[in-house]
Protein backbone atom coordinates (compact mmCIF):
# COMPACT_ATOMS: atom_id res chain seq x y z
CA UNK A 1 0.00 0.00 0.00
CA UNK A 2 1.12 3.52 -0.66
CA UNK A 3 2.38 5.44 2.34
CA UNK A 4 4.21 8.58 3.28
CA UNK A 5 6.37 8.87 6.37
CA UNK A 6 7.49 12.04 8.05
CA UNK A 7 9.68 10.74 10.87
CA UNK A 8 9.83 13.99 12.82
CA UNK A 9 6.62 14.98 14.54
CA UNK A 10 7.99 18.21 15.96
CA UNK A 11 11.14 20.17 15.18
CA UNK A 12 12.40 23.35 16.82
CA UNK A 13 15.00 25.52 15.12
CA UNK A 14 16.44 28.91 15.89
CA UNK A 15 15.59 31.80 13.65
CA UNK A 16 18.25 32.12 10.98
CA UNK A 17 19.27 28.47 11.23
CA UNK A 18 18.91 26.00 8.40
CA UNK A 19 16.06 23.55 8.22
CA UNK A 20 15.54 20.10 6.78
CA UNK A 21 12.26 18.23 7.07
CA UNK A 22 12.32 14.60 6.12
CA UNK A 23 9.87 12.70 3.96
CA UNK A 24 10.02 9.11 2.78
CA UNK A 25 7.46 7.36 0.64
CA UNK A 26 6.51 3.86 -0.30
CA UNK A 27 5.00 3.54 -3.74
CA UNK A 28 4.98 1.09 -6.60
CA UNK A 29 6.21 3.66 -9.08
CA UNK A 30 7.79 7.07 -8.91
CA UNK A 31 5.00 9.28 -7.69
CA UNK A 32 4.41 12.95 -7.93
CA UNK A 33 5.67 14.63 -4.77
CA UNK A 34 4.50 17.70 -2.89
CA UNK A 35 5.10 19.75 0.20
CA UNK A 36 2.24 21.71 1.74
CA UNK A 37 2.29 24.13 4.66
CA UNK A 38 -0.55 24.75 7.07
CA UNK A 39 -0.48 27.72 9.41
CA UNK A 40 -2.71 27.57 12.50
CA UNK A 41 -6.37 27.80 11.52
CA UNK A 42 -5.49 28.04 7.85
CA UNK A 43 -5.85 25.82 4.85
CA UNK A 44 -3.15 23.95 2.98
CA UNK A 45 -0.78 25.96 0.83
CA UNK A 46 1.40 24.32 -1.78
CA UNK A 47 5.10 25.06 -1.25
CA UNK A 48 6.51 23.06 -4.13
CA UNK A 49 6.01 19.98 -6.25
CA UNK A 50 8.02 17.46 -8.22
CA UNK A 51 6.65 15.73 -11.28
CA UNK A 52 9.78 14.94 -13.30
CA UNK A 53 13.05 16.42 -14.49
CA UNK A 54 15.51 18.22 -12.24
CA UNK A 55 15.45 16.51 -8.87
CA UNK A 56 16.07 19.75 -6.97
CA UNK A 57 12.94 21.85 -7.04
CA UNK A 58 12.47 25.39 -5.85
CA UNK A 59 9.31 26.56 -4.18
CA UNK A 60 7.80 29.59 -2.60
CA UNK A 61 9.06 31.34 0.52
CA UNK A 62 12.66 30.26 -0.13
CA UNK A 63 12.01 26.53 0.26
CA UNK A 64 13.52 23.80 -1.86
CA UNK A 65 13.26 20.03 -1.92
CA UNK A 66 15.36 17.27 -3.40
CA UNK A 67 13.98 14.05 -4.80
CA UNK A 68 16.25 11.06 -4.24
CA UNK A 69 14.89 8.02 -6.00
CA UNK A 70 17.39 5.63 -4.42
CA UNK A 71 16.27 6.67 -0.95
CA UNK A 72 12.58 7.18 -1.78
CA UNK A 73 12.91 10.56 -0.16
CA UNK A 74 11.78 14.09 -0.82
CA UNK A 75 13.26 16.25 1.93
CA UNK A 76 12.34 19.88 2.34
CA UNK A 77 15.05 22.44 3.07
CA UNK A 78 15.46 26.09 3.79
CA UNK A 79 18.83 27.74 4.36
CA UNK A 80 17.64 30.35 6.87
CA UNK A 81 14.39 30.01 8.79
CA UNK A 82 12.21 33.00 9.63
CA UNK A 83 9.83 33.18 12.60
CA UNK A 84 6.92 33.26 10.15
CA UNK A 85 7.86 29.78 8.95
CA UNK A 86 6.44 28.28 12.15
CA UNK A 87 3.65 26.02 10.92
CA UNK A 88 2.81 22.41 10.15
CA UNK A 89 4.39 20.92 7.06
CA UNK A 90 2.93 18.03 5.14
CA UNK A 91 4.60 15.87 2.55
CA UNK A 92 2.23 14.29 0.04
CA UNK A 93 2.42 11.93 -2.91
CA UNK A 94 0.18 11.11 -5.83
CA UNK A 95 0.20 8.76 -8.76
CA UNK A 96 0.67 10.29 -12.21
CA UNK A 97 -3.09 10.07 -12.72
CA UNK A 98 -3.00 13.00 -10.33
CA UNK A 99 -3.16 15.21 -13.40
CA UNK A 100 -6.52 13.66 -14.20
CA UNK A 101 -8.04 13.94 -10.79
CA UNK A 102 -5.93 11.56 -8.74
CA UNK A 103 -5.87 11.83 -4.96
CA UNK A 104 -3.10 13.00 -2.66
CA UNK A 105 -1.77 10.82 0.14
CA UNK A 106 -0.39 12.83 3.03
CA UNK A 107 2.21 12.15 5.66
CA UNK A 108 1.57 12.73 9.35
CA UNK A 109 2.99 16.20 9.27
CA UNK A 110 5.92 17.88 11.00
CA UNK A 111 5.25 20.80 13.29
CA UNK A 112 7.95 23.43 13.05
CA UNK A 113 8.60 25.80 15.93
CA UNK A 114 11.02 28.71 15.52
CA UNK A 115 12.75 30.18 18.54
CA UNK A 116 14.17 33.70 18.57
Amino acid sequence: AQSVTQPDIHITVSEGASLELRCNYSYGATPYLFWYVQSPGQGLQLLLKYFSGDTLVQGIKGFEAEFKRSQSSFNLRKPSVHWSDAAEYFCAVALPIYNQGGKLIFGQGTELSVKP
Partner: protein
Amino acid sequence: EPEVTQTPSHQVTQMGQEVILRCVPISNHLYFYWYRQILGQKVEFLVSFYNNEISEKSEIFDDQFSVERPDGSNFTLKIRSTKLEDSAMYFCASSGLNTEAFFGQGTRLTVV
Protein backbone atom coordinates in the same frame (compact mmCIF):
# COMPACT_ATOMS: atom_id res chain seq x y z
CA GLU B 1 -5.96 35.04 -7.60
CA PRO B 2 -8.71 32.42 -7.82
CA GLU B 3 -9.34 30.43 -4.69
CA VAL B 4 -11.46 27.65 -3.28
CA THR B 5 -14.03 28.95 -0.81
CA GLN B 6 -15.59 26.89 1.96
CA THR B 7 -18.52 27.75 4.19
CA PRO B 8 -19.07 27.77 7.06
CA SER B 9 -15.64 28.07 8.65
CA HIS B 10 -16.91 26.37 11.79
CA GLN B 11 -20.01 24.24 12.29
CA VAL B 12 -21.25 22.76 15.52
CA THR B 13 -23.90 20.07 15.27
CA GLN B 14 -25.57 17.58 17.53
CA MET B 15 -24.84 13.89 17.14
CA GLY B 16 -27.31 12.29 14.75
CA GLN B 17 -28.02 15.48 12.86
CA GLU B 18 -27.40 15.95 9.17
CA VAL B 19 -24.80 18.48 8.12
CA ILE B 20 -23.91 19.94 4.73
CA LEU B 21 -20.50 21.44 4.11
CA ARG B 22 -20.26 23.76 1.17
CA CYS B 23 -17.47 24.56 -1.24
CA VAL B 24 -17.09 26.77 -4.25
CA PRO B 25 -14.22 25.38 -6.33
CA ILE B 26 -12.16 27.40 -8.78
CA SER B 27 -14.41 28.11 -11.70
CA ASN B 28 -12.61 26.37 -14.58
CA HIS B 29 -11.53 23.32 -12.59
CA LEU B 30 -12.78 19.86 -13.46
CA TYR B 31 -11.90 17.69 -10.48
CA PHE B 32 -13.21 18.14 -6.98
CA TYR B 33 -12.20 16.55 -3.72
CA TRP B 34 -12.97 16.32 -0.06
CA TYR B 35 -10.32 15.56 2.53
CA ARG B 36 -10.56 15.54 6.30
CA GLN B 37 -8.11 16.06 9.13
CA ILE B 38 -8.98 14.80 12.58
CA LEU B 39 -7.29 16.97 15.18
CA GLY B 40 -3.64 16.08 15.51
CA GLN B 41 -3.74 13.57 12.67
CA LYS B 42 -2.85 13.59 9.02
CA VAL B 43 -4.98 14.81 6.16
CA GLU B 44 -6.98 11.92 4.70
CA PHE B 45 -8.59 11.60 1.30
CA LEU B 46 -12.36 11.09 1.34
CA VAL B 47 -13.64 11.34 -2.21
CA SER B 48 -12.96 12.70 -5.67
CA PHE B 49 -15.61 13.83 -8.12
CA TYR B 50 -15.47 14.34 -11.85
CA ASN B 51 -18.06 14.77 -14.57
CA ASN B 52 -20.87 14.68 -12.03
CA GLU B 53 -19.96 11.39 -10.48
CA ILE B 54 -17.65 9.98 -7.85
CA SER B 55 -14.39 8.88 -9.42
CA GLU B 56 -12.79 7.48 -6.29
CA LYS B 57 -13.65 7.17 -2.61
CA SER B 58 -11.84 5.97 0.44
CA GLU B 59 -13.03 3.43 2.99
CA ILE B 60 -13.86 6.36 5.27
CA PHE B 61 -16.49 7.52 2.79
CA ASP B 62 -19.27 5.17 3.80
CA ASP B 63 -23.01 5.35 3.20
CA GLN B 64 -23.51 8.24 5.58
CA PHE B 65 -21.48 10.49 3.30
CA SER B 66 -22.57 11.88 -0.03
CA VAL B 67 -21.34 14.54 -2.40
CA GLU B 68 -23.15 16.65 -4.90
CA ARG B 69 -22.53 19.38 -7.38
CA PRO B 70 -26.03 20.86 -7.41
CA ASP B 71 -25.24 23.67 -9.82
CA GLY B 72 -22.33 24.95 -11.84
CA SER B 73 -20.47 26.42 -8.91
CA ASN B 74 -21.07 24.59 -5.63
CA PHE B 75 -19.70 21.27 -4.42
CA THR B 76 -21.18 19.89 -1.20
CA LEU B 77 -20.40 17.16 1.29
CA LYS B 78 -23.35 15.82 3.26
CA ILE B 79 -23.01 13.75 6.39
CA ARG B 80 -26.37 12.15 6.98
CA SER B 81 -26.23 11.26 10.65
CA THR B 82 -23.20 12.72 12.34
CA LYS B 83 -21.18 10.83 14.91
CA LEU B 84 -18.74 12.17 17.46
CA GLU B 85 -15.87 10.75 15.44
CA ASP B 86 -16.87 12.87 12.45
CA SER B 87 -15.47 15.88 14.29
CA ALA B 88 -12.63 17.09 12.10
CA MET B 89 -11.46 19.78 9.72
CA TYR B 90 -12.89 19.13 6.29
CA PHE B 91 -11.01 20.47 3.28
CA CYS B 92 -12.40 20.92 -0.17
CA ALA B 93 -9.99 21.03 -3.11
CA SER B 94 -10.22 21.40 -6.84
CA SER B 95 -7.89 20.92 -9.76
CA GLY B 96 -7.87 21.40 -13.48
CA LEU B 97 -6.37 19.25 -16.17
CA ASN B 98 -2.65 19.04 -15.44
CA THR B 99 -2.74 21.41 -12.51
CA GLU B 100 -2.15 20.83 -8.84
CA ALA B 101 -4.97 20.78 -6.34
CA PHE B 102 -5.92 24.02 -4.63
CA PHE B 103 -7.33 23.70 -1.14
CA GLY B 104 -9.92 25.75 0.66
CA GLN B 105 -9.45 27.10 4.17
CA GLY B 106 -11.44 24.24 5.62
CA THR B 107 -14.58 23.81 7.70
CA ARG B 108 -14.11 22.77 11.28
CA LEU B 109 -16.93 20.40 12.17
CA THR B 110 -17.61 19.79 15.84
CA VAL B 111 -20.13 17.09 16.73
CA VAL B 112 -21.44 17.30 20.28
